[in-house]
Structures are given as C-alpha cells and as structure tokens.
C-alpha cells in the first residue's frame, strides 16, 4: 500500500500549507551563477526589458521563487547545474532539447526563473501588471455598463429555455 502524507508529522494546521520566504538552503555561488545563466538565456534583454539577472532585485525574488517551490528545489538547482558546462553559444539549443526530452526538469526550472522575473517591481511595471490587489468597484459601475444597452439584443430575442412542463 502507498501512503499519501503523514498527518501526524504536522503539529500545525491541516488545511493551510506553511509559507516560507527562504529556500530550503542557501545557494552556493556556483549554483546561483548556473541559475542566472539559464535565466538570462530564457529571458534575454529585449527593447526596454532587461535580461533576467539585470532586473532590479532579481536574486532576491529568485530566492522567494525557490522558497515557493521547495518541492522542486533540487530539480531546479540540479537542472541548472547540469547545463553549467554547456558552452554559451550552445545553451539555447540545450534548453530547447531539455524542454522536449526532460519536461520534469525544464518546466519547474523555467517556471521558477520566469516567476522570479515577473515578481520584480521593475518588470511588473514594464509589462503593465499591477499585481493582484484589493480594488473594489464603484457601486454604480455595473449599472452603468448594463445601462449602456449592451444587453438589449439578448432581451429583444426573448426566452430561449426549453419548457419541460415542470417549471
């Protein structure tokens, strides 16, 4: 029989995962370098957009991203390390091959690296993303939208339901 998770190991909450803002362990300089190299290949500079490692606070957000995916920490770090010896000019093709042949490494690796990049305030501003936030609607907004007449064609066509002699 295969078990799922040990309820007894958690002394805390049953339905809420603990949040950590630090990775399971610190990255070595070699590991960080390997991750940044892959990040810059997948996310290069383009127009006003900086390459990944040049985004303000990228390394801090990379740590937060790794903390959010502790389940794949080793996969991500090892995945980048495996590419450390690939020559700069061959890295793009190597990643392309990995994306096809080893999705279990490439997908979390690229998610963490991209997730960190798009968390940085500089990049959020560049792409026009304000982040999820409280933004209650003015009370009159929905009435104004519907009062524009946008629903009139639907109303003009009348009821469309199929009668089943029970309603």
């Amino acid at each position: 029989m295969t078990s799922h998770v040990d309820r007894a190991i958690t002394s805390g909450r049953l339905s809420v995962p603990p949040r950590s803002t630090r990775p399971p362990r610190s990255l070595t300089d070699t590991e960080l370098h390997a991750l940044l190299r892959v990040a810059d290949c997948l996310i290069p500079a383009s127009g006003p957009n900086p390459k990944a490692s040049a985004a303000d606070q990228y390394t801090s957000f990379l740590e937060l991203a790794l903390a959010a995916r502790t389940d794949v920490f080793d996969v991500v770090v090892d995945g980048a390390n495996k590419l450390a010896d690939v020559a700069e000019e061959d890295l793009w093709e190597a990643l392309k091959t990995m994306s096809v042949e080893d999705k279990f490494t490439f997908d979390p690796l690229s998610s963490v690296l991209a997730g960190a990049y798009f968390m940085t305030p500089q990049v959020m501003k560049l792409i026009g993303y304000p982040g999820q936030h409280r933004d209650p609607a003015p009370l009159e907004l929905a009435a104004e939208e519907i009062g524009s007449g946008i629903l009139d064609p639907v109303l003009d066509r009348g009821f469309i339901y199929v009668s089943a002699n029970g309603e």
Partner: protein
Amino acid sequence: MSTETSAGIHSPVDVLVIGAGPSGAVVAHTAAAAGLSVLVLEQGDWVNPSDFPANHPEWELLIQHDWSHDPNVRRLPSDYPVDVSESDMWPVMFNAVGGSSIFYGAEWPRLVPSDFRVKTVDGVSDDWPISYDDLKPYHDEVDAFIGVSGVDGDTAYPDGLQYPLPPNPLGKAGIKAAEAANTLGWHWWPGTNAIASQKFKTLEQCGRWGTCEWGCPQGAKASFDLIYLPQAQQLGAKIVTGARVRKVRTDEHTGLATGAEYLDREGAVQFQPAGTVVLCANGVGTPRLLLLSADERHPNGLANSSDLVGRNLMLHPNCSALGFYEEPLESWRGPAGQLIHSLQFYESDPARGFVRGSKMHVLPTPGPLNAIEAHRQLDFEELWGPQIHNAARRAQNGILWAGQVEDLPELDNRVTLSPDLVDSDGLPAPKVEYRLSENTWANLRFTLNRLVELHEAAGAASILTQEIWVDQPGHLLGTARMGNDAATSVVDSFGKTHDVDNLYIADGSIFVTSGSANPTCTISALALRVAKNLVDDVAARKVNA
C-alpha cells in the same frame, strides 16, 4: 445516553453532519435553526482569508504546488489521495471547513427546466424525481441567505429569476466578450456569482482580486466557512475539525445508523452517536465512506442494495479558448467568478450530432506566469527568448472563454476503493474510473469551436485552445443518485437513503444528471430541501419514540 469510547465520552446529537462544505453548512444551519442539536465532523480545519496565496507576491508559484487544486499534488495533512490510475480526468477537491467552496469560482447558475427531464426531452439517461419548479423556492431561499449577485430575468430561464444583490461589474473583458456574443446573435448574461457586490452579513464587498479559485483574500466570496456555518454556530451547531470519518455504524437489530467512527488529530478512534446521520462529503468522499462502512449486514457497502453507490460519476469536462487582444483589458481584475455566461448552446439540438449541451463563461486571466504556463503548448522559440516579454504582456489583455459540458451518467464511471493506495490514517483511498464518452467528446469539440468563434468575432490577436482540462474537474456528481425506485437509486428525492431510514445524503452525489451549470448552486438548494425534510423526520421520530 452517552457512549464511552477509547478516547472519551461523547453525548449523542440529533443530527450528525459529515463534511463541512456547502451542503454540510446548509444542513447544519437548517437543523440548528429548528432547535436540533447538531455536530459537524470535518477532516480539515479553518482557513483564513489572510492565508490565501494571492496575499503574497509569489502567488503564481504557490498555486502550482502548495495551493494546487489537486490533492494529489498539494498533499496537505487534511487531504486524502485519489487513485486516478484508470481515469481520463483527475477530480479535485479541498478539504477544510468550507470544503471545496474555498477554491470554487462561486459561479452561481441554476439548472434549467430540461435538466430535470433529460429522459423525457432527449430520450437518454433518466429524469429527476423533482422538477425545476420543485427546487426553485429552495434556490430562492439560499440565494437570499448568501447574497447572490446578478441581474434578474436571464432569458435562458423561466420568468421569475431574481437576485438579492446587484451584479458585479462586467469589466473590460466582460464587455468585450458580450459584444462578441451580440455580434453573433447569441445569448449571454451578466455573470451570476455568489460573490457579494456589496457588504452582506458576514461577507465583505468584492475587492476584485481576481483569484477567487485560489481563495478570496477579501472574504467576499460565499465560501461556506464564511456564510451559513458562522450562522449555524451562532445557533448552537458544533464543528469538530481534524476529524476523519472512517465508518458509519448501524444497529444490527434495527438497521438504523447509530453514529460515526472517526480518527481525531492524534489518530485516536472516536465514536460520535447520533439520531440522524447526513453525509456531505462530496461525490467522491461520500461513496468512499459508504463503501468503507461495509460490514456483515452490508457486505457491498452501506445503503448500496442497488449497487449504485459510486456509479454514474459525472465530472463536467471543461474546454477553453484563451484569447489575447491588442487593447488593454485589465485582465488581472476580478471577480473570477464569471464575468458573463452564455447558455446559447445549453439545450440539445439534433443537428449537432450529440445530446445535451454546454455552458460557456468568461473569466479574467490574472498573472503573467499563468499566461506563460498557458503558452507552453507553443514551440520553444515562440515562448522563450525575446518572445517571453510579449507573452507576459498579453496576460493583461486576455479573455478566457471556458466551456463546461454535460456528461451523461454511465455505470462504469465510478468511485470504488483503491486496492493500492491509502490515506495517512491507513484508510483505502477512493479510486476513480472515468472515461469520456463519444457524446461528451463531440460536445467538447463543438463547444470549443464556438469559444474560438467568440474570440474571432471579438478580434482576438491570438487564441490558445485546450480541448479538455484533465486536472480541473471539481464538480463531483451522481455517485448516490436520487430516485423513487430503490432498485435504481440510492436516495429518495429528499436525500434519504432507501436502505437506512435515518441516513441521508445531501451533496452532489444525489444528482441524477449533471446539466452543465456549475453545481454548487443546485447542491445548496438540494441540501436545503433535504435538511428541511429531515427536520420533519426527526420531529416525527421523536414523537414516535
């Protein structure tokens, strides 16, 4: 009377509810309001709005694992595994006070009249033992209690559909989608959602966070830990968390349910005696528990003389078309929740080559990483490298049209007990066997083409399609169907099991057919109907005792 157990003494209650999701909340409140003693057993615990991932900048990564919809990925202590080794789709649920309403989008459409008469109208499956009209007053009462937001008079329904709160805004994405439906001459309607557009009782006003399906940080979505259960507690109902029920016990002489055995947080066995037991553990958890409750008298599982416990599982397969536009649509903004829905293709049309239909609805597309994940179906060069900046920008200009199709009940689509997988307490996991029928595939493909048509009519710059969401079905229906004949159903139209006179089921298990409307609205109305009737039954039993 008290019953001594290995872990203590528990006083009997009038009504024992198993599962603190939407149906359990409605039953608990209704029974407590009638003056009955009520206890709810829930294997999870409470979740606060401040816990949800959208409170944090890394939320898009948190929802990939720690807050995943899929319990097999999330693997929280409250979760049990689901054996999906022989299933086309992977059912999902959330185990906490509030149940899967913690994660639902709170889309709140009712079934239409024909949904209750599929056999009569389309010659397939079965009719329900109740009609649209039978259920309408219960819908109206639930809607008024939780403060549903919507526009009265949806033309896809009979006259008389009204909502207590004004609608949430359509937003730029909703308006764009509605204009496309108008261009095509198709039905649409402003989204009906159990998301408070104004502060209402224990619910806050919607803050348009856009992350409803990963928990509402605002406390505005009508998850049933925030509405119904607090009111039930005020009326005296008790909720025991960390209580994983492993068996419903019956009396060997009378055959009546006597209560339930559960494992507490420390793994100690407890027994809670009760006069009436109500299962509200969802369309996977409820049949699992009935099968776990097998004994010498019920070797095939409890309430299973029909052999229909666990069968006829329906999951509402979804397809989607994600369109990206040139103009900014503020697509991070909620609710999500449906901005609009269309029931243009809800009813059967013989010309389409399949029976029944689908519900189509629009959601926003919050988050650049989510957009990138959606683009993974493209070639490497189309997503990575310089292109990634464009993919991330598109998230702000996105519209997600999703199509939810009706899947008809089939005996071999079922929940059994896994021979291989157990939960953290050593109990057999549910095994889901579910195969998509040709009718369902035809319905999915037809619907997907309509979703693309809507985007094309709106002038989308690019469209990404997904023929089926394999890991998204949270609509768990049909595994203890209702009916008037004990040979062909598990419960009667009031949720009372045919085999055990004081054992009821009030969750999505009792659906006869699935319709294609999001089911929590109907589950809640059915639960209210079940609860009101069982209150009368309990009173009658007390008189006769």
